[in-house]
């Protein structure tokens, strides 16, 4: 008697639906390519300061992407990602300042350390659901600046650490700001690619299944606790690398830069862009970098009222985030334009 009962796959099965996917895929590739070309050309048309701002947008986008993996795709709310951003930043700062490690080599170190920290934090987090997890992570966000001051032999305490300025490779005749822009762009593209690979494969389905129906997920053979811990580690890896990049680009770290507000900003950016999207992270990065300054320009007296209003406006018009709301609409338009019809 046979033990394993397999439904034989039909031969040559990818049919009409596969064709439609291919159609929208090529359109997607063309638009991605156009975006990358645009992103490469952009810094040469802008002032140094604006280049710096865009560099920060991309760094925040990586941090928000990390949060999206955890909150959007796995359903675990974190109000403490500023802490992991700080861990990445201080990893880079301490390695560069104390040990003279080149700036680029601090990125994998920050990735590794923040992955381990995330897994360690994710294990007790298994015991908390929804708003309770948010509160536990909130405690971490509150503790971060104080911890940074407390371990002052390593962190430089209140004074923080000044970092040596990265030098662009001499064969490339561009200035430091534009070089760091490209470093951040490379990091963002790699981060997006890795996130897409993870989220569109077996792991991604397991993360979403765990979020949507944890009991059914277990019955399908998904060890949900393990995947939740992996989600935490992966998420903090992304956010930690973003923190390291930020430290390198700004050239300075101090406890004040990693307050609760940073953690809240990440969550706001995530929600504004679309928590369960990859592209939403870029919209989130734009919001985090520009909206506080814009609000300040509009009203010196009450910038946070303007900030709150902007948030309200975004969430009201696009409840599933900019990308979460607009992307399905674009997708449909692309399908209609494409040479193949679905079904």
């Amino acid at each position, binding site marked *: *008697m*046979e*033990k*394993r*009962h*397999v*439904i*034989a*796959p*039909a031969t040559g*099965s990818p049919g009409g*639906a596969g064709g*439609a996917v291919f159609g929208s895929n090529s359109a997607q590739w063309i638009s991605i390519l156009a975006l990358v070309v645009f992103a490469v050309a952009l810094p040469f048309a802008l002032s140094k300061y604006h280049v710096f701002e865009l560099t920060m947008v991309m760094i925040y986008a990586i941090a928000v992407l990390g949060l999206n993996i955890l909150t959007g795709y796995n359903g675990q709310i974190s109000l403490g990602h500023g802490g992991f951003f700080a861990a990445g930043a201080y990893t880079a700062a301490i390695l560069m300042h104390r040990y003279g490690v080149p700036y680029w080599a601090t990125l994998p170190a920050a990735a590794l350390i923040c992955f381990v920290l995330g897994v360690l934090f994710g294990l007790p987090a298994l015991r908390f659901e929804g708003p309770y997890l948010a509160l536990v992570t909130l405690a971490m966000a509150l503790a971060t600046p104080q911890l940074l001051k407390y371990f002052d032999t390593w962190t430089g305490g209140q004074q923080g650490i000044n970092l040596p300025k990265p030098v662009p490779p001499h064969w490339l005749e561009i200035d430091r700001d534009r070089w760091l822009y490209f470093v951040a762009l490379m990091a963002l593209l790699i981060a997006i690619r*890795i996130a897409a*690979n*993870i989220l569109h*494969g*077996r*792991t*991604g*389905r*397991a993360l*979403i*299944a765990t979020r*949507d*129906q944890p*009991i*059914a*997920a*277990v*019955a*399908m*053979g*998904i*060890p*949900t606790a393990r995947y939740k811990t*992996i989600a935490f580690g*992966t998420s903090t890896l992304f956010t930690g690398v973003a923190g390291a990049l930020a430290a390198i680009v700004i050239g300075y770290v101090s406890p004040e830069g990693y307050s609760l507000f940073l953690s809240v900003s990440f969550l706001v950016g995530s929600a504004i862009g679309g928590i*369960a999207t990859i592209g939403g992270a870029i919209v989130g990065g734009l919001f985090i970098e520009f909206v506080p300054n814009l609000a300040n320009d509009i009203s010196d007296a009450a910038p946070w009222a303007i900030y709150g209003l902007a948030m309200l406006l975004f969430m009201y018009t696009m409840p599933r985030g900019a990308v979460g709301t607009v992307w399905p609409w674009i997708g449909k338009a692309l399908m209609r334009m494409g040479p193949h019809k*679905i*079904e």
Partner: protein
Amino acid sequence: MTDRPLAAADGPHTADPLLEIADVTMRFGGIVALEAVTFSVSQGRIVGLIGPNGAGKTTLFNCLSRLYRPMRGDIRLNGRSLNRCAPSDIAALGVGRTFQAPTLFASMSVLDNVKVGAHARGANTPLTDALSLPRMRREEHELEQIARATLTFVGLDQMAARPAANLSLGARKRVELARALAVQPSLLLLDEPAGGLNHTEVAELGALVRSIRDRLGITVLLVEHHMGLVMGLSDQVVVLNFGRVIADGPPDEVRSNPAVTEAYLGTRH
């Protein structure tokens, strides 16, 4: 009932039991949900598990998929005890199940829901996914093939790309079934698959369950309130009442068992 070669003739204790449930007891506080439940399911059978509401049917299912750990007794699949297994190991051992309440992954497509069913058949880790190795893409392709073939089997191949959130109840139940089949189980647990279905859909479901047994050789344990379906499909019917097995045998025998009539209709005065 004699036209089916696999129909049970001599009660539950025939050769080659796929599933053995021995002395399983489960209490919640002071309430006895299962009391010394003992029966076995032979390879290639469709076994109906019936009983009034609150008789312990779903509790038993939850013990089988290790969502609960029985307080006493043992559950063996192919001779191997499930009590020591983690709940997420049960699928890999060859047990697929559906749920009474809808449990589809609402934000995914129908196809992805079924792919999740094949999770235990895959070997990709977050690292191989992240690097998108050729091995990983090959496995994704295989999973896709399995999922599509399974959807074709349940008659939903046209709906693969649809979001699972907006399907009719009948289609949702079929996707649940396809997802459980993608586990490639040797034992399929169906928890009230006919609940909320209309007359035609129930008939189609009956034919589908029969072909799951006949064409795929999968053993089925079926919890169902629809008596026509259970009695028409099952080779063996086990009746639970207040957590105890009160009857176990071929449908005809169970139907005429006075203890069963009493459980359903109350004592005759």
